[in-house]
């Protein structure tokens, strides 16, 4: 018999992010973006660990969070590109708006659930007329169409929704950050100096690129590599330092914890 692992399952990236922020809400002045970003990435790795399928959206939100965090860590304002700054503000406002919208509909859903619970306790009378009116009854099939019949059949064979949360609406991730780190740990020492473009060359899907980007950030955080971007939209140089912590076997799950 399989061991059941109790793990929170999130309906989407906004759901997860909201949960993390609200968990910290005890004192809003204490919330650190750093904590949130790390917690978000940790949840993301847990999902991968449990072999659940993760949507692209989760990773895209992660990328935005990391960008926000990186910007906040910049010491001065002198070198900030105005366009870049505006773009980031836009992205942040969008994320904020989507979080608020998500929260609104989560609350609405709770109220709807109480409506449904109440309505489920009453049963409508649907018996119709008795045999005394049979002679008056017009044709039962009057107004019946093939379309109605088809809809009726679909309704009849549609399984009743269950309470359990299913994840099959989430598109599968074929490349995990952990796997990408593994690959890069193998490739980069041989390459020595490289660049983001070189590393992502030949990758077709945006998701793959994002995953590699996250992997590089992770390795940078661990000290395995140095990265530098000379110009905006310019290529990012990646330099293997070879001085990271010991690395053996598969990527540890706690690598994201800051």
């Amino acid at each position, binding site marked *: 018999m399989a061991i059941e692992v109790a793990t929170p399952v999130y309906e989407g990236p906004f759901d997860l992010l909201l949960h993390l922020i609200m968990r910290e809400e005890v004192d809003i002045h204490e919330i650190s973006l750093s904590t949130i970003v790390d917690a978000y990435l940790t949840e993301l790795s847990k999902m991968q660990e449990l072999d659940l399928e993760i949507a692209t959206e989760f990773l895209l939100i992660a990328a935005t969070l990391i960008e926000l965090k990186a910007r906040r860590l910049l010491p001065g304002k002198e070198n900030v590109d105005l366009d870049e700054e505006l773009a980031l503000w836009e992205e942040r406002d969008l994320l904020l708006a989507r979080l608020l919208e998500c929260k609104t509909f989560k609350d609405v859903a709770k*109220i709807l659930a109480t409506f449904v619970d109440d309505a489920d306790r009453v049963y*409508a009378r649907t018996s119709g007329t008795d045999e005394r009116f049979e002679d008056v009854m017009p044709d039962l099939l009057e107004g019946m169409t093939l379309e109605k019949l088809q809809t009726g059949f679909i309704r009849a064979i549609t399984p009743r*929704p269950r309470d359990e949360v299913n994840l099959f609406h989430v598109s599968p991730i074929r490349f995990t950050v952990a796997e990408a780190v593994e690959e890069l740990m193998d490739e980069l020492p041989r390459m020595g100096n490289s660049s983001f473009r070189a590393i992502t060359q030949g990758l077709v899907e945006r998701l793959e690129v994002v995953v590699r980007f996250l992997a590089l950030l992770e390795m940078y955080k661990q000290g395995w590599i140095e990265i530098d971007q000379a110009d905006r939209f310019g290529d990012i140089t990646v330099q293997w330092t070879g001085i990271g912590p010991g690395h053996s076997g598969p990527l540890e799950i706690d690598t994201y914890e800051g």
Partner: protein
Amino acid sequence: MSVEVTTEVVRAVEAILLVAQEPVPTDLIAQLVEVPSASIEEVCVRLAESYEAAGHGFQIAKVAGGWRFQTHPDLAPYVERFILDGQRARLSGAALETLAIIAYKQPISRLQIASIRGVDPDAVMRTLHGRGYIAPVGRDNGPGQAVLWGTTQLFLEKLGLASLADMPPIASFVPDASLVEALEKTLRIEADPSAAVAEQSEEPEAQ
């Protein structure tokens, strides 16, 4: 009451609702018994009150745009024992959230729902469509001519609502100020200096 309503009218309303298989609109009853709609509405409201006062095991209620006989919620355990199917169409959290979005934003496309929820709502929507709670209501005028979705009569019945107007106003669900502040603060681009210091000290390896 706007017009004098006879006992016969009240009795006729009871009889019609008893044989109805789905909620009967006030206007239809009015037409059948030849009394203004306003009077019928009042008859129904009064009947509902009198059944409750008399302590009957049934009630009449306005659901999905019409009046119907239904059992009193108190007696659900007995009714469930009798109706053996017992299987309620329970809705998952995802299904309810998707329904909420469709209910308030209809007509709305699948893509718009996806962008609000942050995940593909396809499977959930298929279930909701299969159960008859949502239906295509048109097509977008845009280039893609996306199918637009809306809620159905059955949705109203499932929620026990007389009409969409009975949904609580969306404004009452706007997140409270402290949460907005928390979100804004967490995602602030320029942290206040103390926070920045705090962040930096937490992350010694970040250059």
